[in-house]
């Protein structure tokens, strides 16, 4: 997939649709957003065309800095858990035989056929009072009354991990599949313990997959506010929810634009960091 389009000599006419698409749907909206973030809100309605830095100053208030911190915290926590679950999953999947690889892959892909929202509603059925989990726990006499599992922080983390896990698994898998296991065997022959073999051979060679998995899960988890809304009962305030609210009920487009701009800069810093660490511009696994 990677070298399907060679850079440089190709006929620009063939690239024209891509240019049009990029300009129309990527460059212009971003430009518009950045411009908007320096304007001020009109008294009753819309936007005033006067330059201001007020929107960015407002982000520095503890309240809004707090929402950035909250978003980062949730993103780090979810990404950490995803690494713990996803890395071994992808790694061992790559070691399976061809038939099982296919089956495992299918199991990961099937949930993607339904909408993310519907899958999240599935978790509501599990977590709600007198829901599936409550019934099981009470049936086993572990608890005696319904727990309040839904609309809590753990419920949100579960939703995040569940939604983003496949990205990590696929990234690690594609890296681990390229790993030559005879190298591991050679190190074992030469007397390395299995842990040492993993630490010195397997891990470094699958690191690009792991890192791109982290990027692919961390960045979306900064923005997936609807999971916090649905499973957290709107009680966890993430940057995404503030942007959404400022655009709709707050009717303050410039402030929403400024928040989006900062979020965008934060995430592009993450990608820069990834490039620095791996020396590669491409993400393993999905791109």
């Amino acid at each position, binding site marked *: 997939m990677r070298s399907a389009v060679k850079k440089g000599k190709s006929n620009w006419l063939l690239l024209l649709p891509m*240019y049009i698409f990029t300009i129309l749907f990527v460059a212009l909206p971003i430009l518009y957003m950045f411009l908007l973030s320096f304007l001020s809100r009109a008294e*009753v309605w819309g936007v005033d065309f006067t330059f201001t830095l007020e929107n960015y100053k407002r982000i520095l208030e503890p309240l*809004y800095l707090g*929402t950035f911190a909250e978003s980062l915290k949730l993103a780090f926590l979810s990404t950490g858990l995803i690494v713990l679950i996803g890395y071994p999953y992808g790694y061992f999947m790559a070691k399976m035989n061809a038939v099982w690889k296919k089956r495992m892959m299918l199991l990961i892909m099937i949930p993607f056929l339904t909408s993310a929202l519907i899958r999240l509603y599935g978790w509501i059925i599990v977590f709600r*009072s007198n829901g599936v989990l409550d019934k099981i726990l009470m049936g086993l006499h572990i608890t005696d009354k319904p727990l309040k599992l839904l609309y809590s922080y753990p419920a949100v983390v579960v939703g995040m991990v569940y939604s983003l896990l496949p990205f990590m698994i696929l990234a690690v898998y594609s890296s681990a599949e390229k790993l030559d296991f005879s190298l591991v065997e050679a190190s074992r022959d030469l007397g390395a313990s299995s842990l040492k073999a993993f630490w010195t051979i397997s891990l470094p060679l699958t690191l690009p997959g792991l890192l791109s998995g982290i990027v692919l899960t961390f960045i979306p988890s900064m923005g997936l506010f609807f999971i916090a809304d649905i499973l957290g009962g709107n*009680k966890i305030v993430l940057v995404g929810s503030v942007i959404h609210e400022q655009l709709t009920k707050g009717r*303050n487009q410039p402030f929403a634009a400024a928040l989006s701009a900062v979020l965008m800069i934060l995430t592009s810093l993450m990608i820069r960091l990834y490039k620095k660490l791996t020396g590669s511009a491409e993400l393993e696994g999905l791109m």
Partner: protein
Amino acid sequence: MKKWITLLLCAGLTVFSLAGCGKAEEGKSASGLSGELNLYTWDGMFPQEILRGFEEETGVRINFSHFDYDEDMLAKLEETQGGDYDLVIADDYIIEVVIQEGLAQKLDTARLENYGNLNPVFMSQFYDPQNEYTVPYGAGIPLIMYDPALTDVEIKGYGDLWNPALSDNVAITANYRVINGITLKALGKSMNTEDLATIQKAGDKLLELAPNIRVINDSNTQDYLISGEVAAAFLYSSQVSAALTARDDLELVYPEEGLGFGIMAGFIPSKAPNADAAYAFIDYINRPENAAACFEYIGYYCTNKAAEEHISEEMQQMIVLPETVTEGEIVQNISQEAEDLHAEIWNTFKTACD
């Protein structure tokens, strides 16, 4: 060369996309005699039989276009400068802006035979104090409901939601002007105060509500009550109707501190291509039987006094305003500083709920 082309493209596309904005896709009735009514409101605001009945009776074809948000409607009207649509039904606060911008035309109420049927409680409001431009069509009144089986607290007003016995047991809607508004009301203040100190005081009071909040959601808030996830909820009219339909053992409370109204109203845009049809339609939907059918269908409070007796027994409790209610306050557009403070209070509150 490449840069050149990119630049040209950029310029070309900008012009092209701007030009595209100017054209409305719908409702291009060329003359006032085209016999089309261009109706613009939310989806599901009229039962099919009413729309069909009007078409059969008058021979006017209804061209229904709908919007999701009031803001979209305003943008569209600004674009067409009050043209293209004959009748628009939208929320109170946005109508204030529409009138201010001169996008609505004055009504000749003498042309409306059924004008006298309207309920004055829902008229002469801030957005149209003299009733010059609008005719109400449905009202929403967020109310408290609770499940007596799940709590011993007898809820009479907003203040009771603060009762510690309701810890982690209350669901509320997510509109911060409304939630901060009822907090102001619980303090005996106006929802629309622009006094920052008063708003801040309400903010402090709202923070004390945080331990009781189980969930904040604007859509399907009634579900938490129906499924027993919470003991009490503060929810919108249509949700109250839905909850009562599902479980009639729930208690409905008209808070003693006073009510918040949200009124939907119809107006004719300033350059409506076929205002005559709009007058005919407004008159048609305000015949008592027709109005009853409409309000039973949309599940909002009936704004037509004469229609009330035509509303079925089981819907009476949900959509007919009790006699005791004579007024309600509406959330209005307020100063930017006050609006921003409300937003800040809300986010602080939400963070505290977690």
